């Protein structure tokens, strides 16, 4: 039975850090190698488990940043008072090992098939699973018209800044900086709102596929705004992240 074969499939794997990229002062990408890792779909996440010498364990979920087919990479934002993220962002270095399991998620995923345009809306590190989709789109030569609306606090907080400055054909990137803007900033300079969504999002009649990721408040604002524009609620796929790290 196909279902039975899946049972027990999700086991903790030993992962080793093989590379680390500092994305912003508080955000780092770790490239991981894990025997038994079977690959992932764009948008999925992994659970990370750290075990202290006294046996205490802490588990957190992190979105996968790399495209399917690329080495597994997670991008992690350091949260104050976090149990796991401070280690991953500030301490872990090449050769360190910890446990992971996954990939996880069958809802917030984009496989690159189909014609409808794609609208991606990210708040802060909510850009990570959307970046996996963007990289997947580029890697597969997809021509699906895609727009990213990405909200960060400041220019220094923009994750994947260089990569987003040179988007692939058919990808339009719109950014807003909510707290501070560098001189000459040409993007938006406020929190996302209905007016901004109206300028960036396609008309609902084009039936775009929508992925929104960010804090609960950010996701609610974006989703409510799109529903007010006539987007069917079920066309808007959302992922909220919390304040535990």
């Amino acid at each position, binding site marked *: 039975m196909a279902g039975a074969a899946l049972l027990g499939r999700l086991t903790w794997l030993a992962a080793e850090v093989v590379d680390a990229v500092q994305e912003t002062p508080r955000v780092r990408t770790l490239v991981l190698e894990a025997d038994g890792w079977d690959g992932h779909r764009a948008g999925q996440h992994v659970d990370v488990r750290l075990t202290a010498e006294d046996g205490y364990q802490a*588990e957190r979920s992190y979105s996968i940043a790399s495209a399917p087919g690329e080495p597994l990479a997670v991008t992690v934002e350091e949260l104050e008072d976090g149990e796991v993220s401070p280690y991953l962002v500030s301490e872990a270095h090449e050769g360190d090992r910890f446990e992971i399991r996954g990939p996880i998620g*069958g809802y917030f995923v984009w496989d690159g098939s189909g014609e409808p345009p794609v609208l991606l809306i990210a708040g802060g590190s909510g850009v990570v699973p959307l970046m996996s989709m963007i990289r997947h789109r580029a890697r597969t030569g997809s021509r699906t018209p895609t727009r990213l609306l990405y909200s960060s606090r400041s220019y220094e907080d923009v994750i994947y800044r260089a990569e987003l400055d040179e988007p692939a054909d058919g990808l339009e990137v719109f950014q807003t900086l909510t707290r501070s803007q560098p001189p000459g900033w040409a993007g938006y300079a406020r929190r996302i709102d209905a007016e901004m969504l109206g300028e960036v999002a396609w008309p609902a009649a084009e039936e775009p596929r929508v992925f929104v990721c960010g804090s*609960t408040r950010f996701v609610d604002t974006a989703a409510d705004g799109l529903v007010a524009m006539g987007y069917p609620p079920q066309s808007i796929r959302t992922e909220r992240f919390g304040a535990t790290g």
Partner: protein
Amino acid sequence: MRVDEMRLDGNAIGGLLIELFGTDLTGSMGVCASCGARGHVATLDVYVHAPGVVGRCRSCGAVMIRIVRSETRTWLDLSGTRTIEIADAAALE
């Protein structure tokens, strides 16, 4: 922290659900026993800060799933869920 900021969604318990059910449920459709609303498990309002995990219907707020774990066992209450429709992984919408 305000209660509203503690609200996550069903994506956050994807790993836990695979552990319990052996397959990814976030893309499956659940029906609320209270109001009959049908939606993806990923869209449940989820609270993980309680002693256990609580998942509530996005439409009516009723508790659809409760999971409490200890070192030796897991207690699962699905009385608020009428059905869960588990699609084959390859056929997920």
